[in-house]
């Protein structure tokens, strides 16, 4: 079945991205929008558009009944969910399919399975993907904890078996510390949860976040290499790279091949991402979860490999096969994406919706800007603060960062506050240049006042 009319159940920059991909395939696009989004760029670019409800997302972009009805009325034969909103909602997939349309993504059952952390961990282990080593079940005796810790390897994280939300977590660096902490943790767990049972897990300190992009057609899966996404604030990625310089070729191969094994084991259809923690000290990686959607940072992989991930996911969702084999996927150079958010980085990243008065986009080889802005556009306050993604591709990481700096200097978005000053500070930071950071790096760096100092220096020059 060929997709002829694609309904886009999303907004912002990803809606624009999907429209461009679909139009490039000769597909008619139907853009959904809330009452607050009638003037957004995706509505202007799409072949057709339809209102799905009031401004709050719960009444529009998260309203399954309204979206399915709008898609049916507009005679769509497929629905692309983008990311966020309903992209990983199995109930939405079932509603779309029950209405006789295709969902651009994996099956509802795959979303259910990979969305459940325990089931996903089991699927990963079955496919030979390493997971964070831990005790199989609850531990009640200190001696049991000591013998398990010897197998897992120190440092170990001691958690209450009945707990949650990080309460009472302790990290033991050695057996001596474990013998001291385990009874304390038991007493605290008993007091807090009425259950003194413990759970042990290898503590991966200052890990990197590495993820692998995969594509599947239900029978066959391929990987499009990895991304490095350790630059995070409040667990939100702010800067992403492809590939991950910290990996050896051997580790990279193993990481990517086990990701493909997992994707094939679950009969994956569409684009997906396997996320891992990477311990740079031991060069070990551990699966944490799978995202069953296209991701915000997919453009770095597209720049690295030349593959159009969005077109590929549309194609396989129509029941066709992947257009390439693994040996046809190659990586060239290095790509970096930075997220441009409508936030004031000098005021605790306070959201800053406003009207775009001036928009100047840098042009040139290796520069891409995915966004949904135009001059005069009023950014609505109801949704995510992401307004654009600046992506660069250079022959190596050093060149990519230099190009990123030039591109950031050429990017002018006036009328709103943006995170451009944050990225301008990061491109000059010696640890960033040395690729010496991890998931716990950015927040202390901000707390130490690096951003203010860098920015002021920039203003004097």
């Amino acid at each position, binding site marked *: 079945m060929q997709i002829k009319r694609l309904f886009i159940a999303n907004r912002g920059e990803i809606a624009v991205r999907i429209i461009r991909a679909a139009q490039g395939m000769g597909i008619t696009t139907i853009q959904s929008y809330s009452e*607050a989004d009638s003037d957004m760029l995706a509505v202007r670019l799409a072949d057709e558009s339809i209102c799905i409800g*009031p*401004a*709050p997302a*719960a009444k529009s972009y998260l309203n399954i009944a309204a979206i399915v009805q709008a898609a049916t009325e507009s005679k769509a034969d497929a629905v692309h969910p983008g990311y966020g909103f309903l992209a990983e909602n199995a109930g939405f997939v079932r509603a779309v399919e029950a209405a006789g349309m295709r969902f651009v993504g994996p099956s509802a059952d795959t979303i259910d399975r990979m969305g459940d952390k325990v089931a996903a961990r089991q699927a990963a282990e079955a496919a030979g993907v390493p997971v964070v080593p831990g005790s199989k079940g609850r531990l009640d005796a200190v001696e049991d904890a000591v013998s398990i810790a010897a197998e897992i390897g120190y440092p170990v994280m001691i958690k209450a078996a009945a707990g949650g939300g990080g309460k009472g977590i302790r990290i033991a660096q050695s057996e001596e510390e474990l013998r001291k902490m385990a009874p304390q943790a038991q007493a605290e767990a008993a007091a807090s949860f009425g259950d003194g049972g413990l759970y042990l897990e290898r503590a991966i300190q200052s890990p990197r976040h590495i993820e692998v992009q995969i594509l599947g057609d239900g029978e066959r899966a391929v990987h499009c290499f990895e991304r490095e996404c350790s630059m995070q604030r409040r667990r939100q990625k702010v800067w992403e790279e492809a590939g991950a310089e910290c990996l050896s070729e051997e580790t990279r191969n193993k990481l990517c091949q086990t990701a493909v094994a997992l994707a094939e084991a679950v009969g994956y259809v569409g684009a997906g991402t396997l996320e891992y923690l990477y311990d740079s000290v031991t060069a070990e990686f551990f699966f944490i979860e799978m995202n069953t959607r296209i991701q915000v940072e997919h453009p770095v992989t597209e720049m690295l490999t030349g593959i159009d991930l969005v077109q590929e996911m549309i194609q396989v969702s129509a029941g066709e096969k992947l257009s390439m084999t693994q040996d046809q996927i190659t990586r060239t150079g290095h790509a970096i994406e930075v997220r441009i958010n*409508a*936030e004031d980085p000098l005021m605790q990243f*306070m*959201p800053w*919706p406003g009207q775009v008065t001036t928009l100047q986009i840098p042009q040139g080889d290796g520069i891409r800007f995915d966004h949904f802005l135009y001059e005069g556009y009023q950014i*609505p*306050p*109801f*949704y*995510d*603060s992401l307004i654009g993604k600046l992506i660069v591709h250079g022959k190596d990481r050093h060149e990519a960062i230099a190009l990123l700096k030039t591109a950031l200097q050429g990017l002018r978005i006036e009328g709103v506050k943006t995170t451009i000053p944050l990225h301008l500070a990061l491109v000059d930071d010696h640890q960033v240049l040395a690729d010496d950071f991890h998931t716990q790096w950015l927040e202390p760096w901000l707390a130490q006042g690096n951003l203010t100092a860098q920015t002021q220096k920039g203003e004097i020059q």
Partner: protein
Amino acid sequence: MSQILSPLPGTFYTQPSPEEPVYKAEGDAVAVGDTIGLVEVMKTFIEIKSEAAGTFASYALESGGAVTAGQVLAELAD
């Protein structure tokens, strides 16, 4: 009568969460600095605090409604 205005555009909520009671009901005493509601702007929740003291009269709109910067959120009787 004094009015409490929204400093930002966004979505207004009269309760800390759907399960909890409203911040203020008619007749409640309001002190300077009391939180009377939340405005969600780009997924961030900002507490709206009263700059005046008085007796709570009413919310100007329903919880979950869209607001613009400067819009009246609630009214106080002196």
